[in-house]
């Protein structure tokens, strides 16, 4: 019986060892927690590119779509014979350098939709700090091209920008440096990336030009604080798209100013 027991134990341990071994032989990828990015005034292109690679593979979430070959253009590998992104970015738009093109693509992704793909990319300048944005640009340039991003490209005011939760101009002081000018708040919060107002912006989300005829100030305030509290008719499929964080990113005075401003748009 001891022989049988030993065989059973051997089979159990052997099977466990085999599975553990295989799982340890494959590439080991750990999901990291987003870290604060701090770049000094003397940062080198190599350091920028290295920092950008981490953002690209981590908090930026770029690999979620880029590199799959179906949702977004390949960036690190060839895309339809045009080469990697560093090699092709300078040729994409006449008169625009690689650096300019990449920044605008991150700041306003709908400006340059590559043929065959859908406009699904979020505005990355609202998701990442300027330091992270410029680091990603440096990394993308390094993929087949020359890195010309320098510390001078990074706005001096951004040196304290940290994580994604406060990126995009929000934080305890609110958007737009705490200004209560509704137009400045709308611009800083990026509302027009999805909404249209007075002829400007996109029509992905409801047009706000006459929002005051549909909602009063209280309803608008509630909608900003809790985007799922009510969904406009015809936009049910987009429920959940509007960030939940605006309420924590603007000051009470800004929220009130914005709600009153929009409610006046009858």
């Amino acid at each position, binding site marked *: 019986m001891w022989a049988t027991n030993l065989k059973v134990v051997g089979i*159990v341990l052997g099977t466990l060892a085999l*599975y553990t071994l295989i799982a340890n032989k494959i*590439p*080991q*990828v750990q*999901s990291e927690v987003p870290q604060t990015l701090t770049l000094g005034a003397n940062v080198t292109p190599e350091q920028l590119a290295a920092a950008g690679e981490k953002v690209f593979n981590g908090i930026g979430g770029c690999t979620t*779509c880029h590199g799959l070959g179906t949702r977004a253009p390949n960036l690190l590998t060839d895309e339809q014979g045009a080469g990697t992104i560093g090699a092709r970015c300078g040729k994409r738009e006449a008169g625009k350098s690689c650096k300019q093109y990449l920044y605008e693509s991150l700041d306003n992704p709908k400006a340059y939709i590559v043929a065959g793909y859908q406009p699904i990319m979020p505005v990355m300048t609202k998701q990442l700090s300027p330091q992270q944005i410029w680091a990603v640009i440096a990394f993308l340039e390094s993929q087949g091209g020359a890195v010309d991003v320098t510390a001078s490209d990074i706005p001096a005011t951004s040196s304290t920008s940290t994580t994604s939760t406060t990126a995009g101009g929000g934080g305890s002081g609110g958007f737009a440096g705490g200004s209560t000018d509704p137009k400045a708040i709308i611009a800083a919060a990026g509302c027009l990336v999805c909404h249209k107002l007075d002829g400007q912006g996109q029509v992905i989300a409801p047009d706000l030009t006459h929002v005051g005829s549909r909602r009063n100030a209280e309803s608008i305030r509630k909608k900003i604080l809790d985007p799922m509290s009510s969904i406009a008719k015809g936009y049910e499929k987009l429920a959940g798209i509007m960030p939940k964080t605006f*309420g924590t990113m603007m000051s009470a005075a800004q929220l009130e100013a914005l709600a009153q401003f929009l409610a006046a748009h009858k």
Partner: protein
Amino acid sequence: MTQHLVLALQAAADTTRAYGEFPLIGARAAVWIAAEVHLMFAAFVLGVPMFAVVAEAIGIVGKDARYDRLAKEFTRLLLVAYSATAIWGAVLVFILATLWMKPWAYLTAVFAPSMWLYVALFFCESFTLYLYYYGWDRWKYGRPKWGHWGLGLLLNLWGTIVMFIANSWLTYMMTPPRDITPTTDPATIKLWHAIANATWMPINVHRLIANVVFGGAIVAAYASYRFLAAKTDAERAHYDWMGYVGNFIAMSALIVLPFAGYWLGREIYQYDQSMGITMMGGFMSWLWVIQAFLIAVLFLTGNYYLWIGMGRIPGAERFRPYTKWLLVVLVLGAIVWGTPHTMIADSKELAAMGGSHHPFLGALGVMSAKNTAVNLMILTTFLSFLMYRRANTRPVVPWARTGTIIQGAMFAVAAAVVLFYGIRGYFVEAIVRIGFSVYQVLAVLSCIVFVTLIDILMARGAQSLGAIQWGKMPPRSQYALFILAVTFTWLMGLMGFARSGIRQYWHVWQVVQDTSKYAATPALGYASKMISLCVLIFLTLVAFVFWLGGLAEKSTFVAPAEREGGGRRVGH
């Protein structure tokens, strides 16, 4: 040692911090082990009563004492396993309360009433189990027997509700309703709103089926050990039969499990596409290659057990030449299913591969190929079972030849549908391609249902080519059952890691952030060591539980003479 003890006591006493620390292995490993081992026991004690009740019903209706004894033996294993489940549950609660205070406080604020209900139902379940087991011989015949069977049903009902409640907590952490934000006061969240979240029902269904698979596999491993330790032919025959039944239940439920998995995956994608992509194409992408390997082991070992089992069935030799072709299909299917596709890779790896996909193998790694492979593997396994089932009979109904031709045609049509949509999937948009998997699944399920139906009708009055010689199995067949049990358990740990890990650095997805030093989700290497450790702890304890069960009562195998005589009285 004293220092570690002091540290542990301090961790338990200091409730002002968000997280505690555990000596030697760290807080993450402590929570992981407590949760995983508790879950494994819970899956066992939820899965086993399901087929104990089914076996008892077969015994009553079919007047076969073997099934009644089998059901009782299953239930006897449950008694001690139930205590172990409760003990590990208590360990988990204490660990959570002392090491994981921040998320624990949040969850109790949202779910407190359901936790009280959970405890109440746990009492009901425990006492129903005691009544079910200890009343077995008292309510053995006639109408009271049906009342006893009703107790078994009630036991399953309590267990299922308990599981559904626990599932609501963990699914809320994955997919909290979208209107809940980081600023939402947890005390204001309506309980039912939190329970009925996007992945609650898919997880309920998935776990219900998976528990049956798991329970069957563990019981089969128990039976295989008793087979190897048996001292008489009658005992060996009984445990051979028990192992077959356990394995049959496990493999049958396994066949439908992927469909429940698809539903869960779809709900995750619909809830938050980035979460779905993290799971399938992000840092967890390699996990699915490991999963494919484990599933391949399950299919190959399960079929291997059936093919060896045919050696003890008179008349099975006519099917033996076909098994090598079945093996070819299974191996090819496993290779395709295991082909990586959407791998997270850095620029050097992408350059080495020559693109985001492998130039040749990339075509096999897409869902079209994988769905085709897995559906053909399921069809092949079903064919193995069909051959096993028909091995010692020859149908005598006048339409037997026509029926067999129709069955063959059904297999051919199902395989053709699977292949057609698999190939067509390469030429259509992704959104259309996803819909094709439904047609493939329906073709396979229809084939299984209708072929089985025809087979049952064809078996009426069939000529016997000889009785199955239970007990005449080589020992290697029993070791195969051990591999199945270890693999099922390991796979459960792996899928648990996938489900929990896709939350990444969130306790509650995008609502409560993990700010502990263990916030980063570990790579598969670390996870695999933890899973292996948990499986080892679980199997060691289960072996002890079974040994205890053996001490309490002598083996309940039924001698052939008793099978005939005792069977007549059941149900009368």
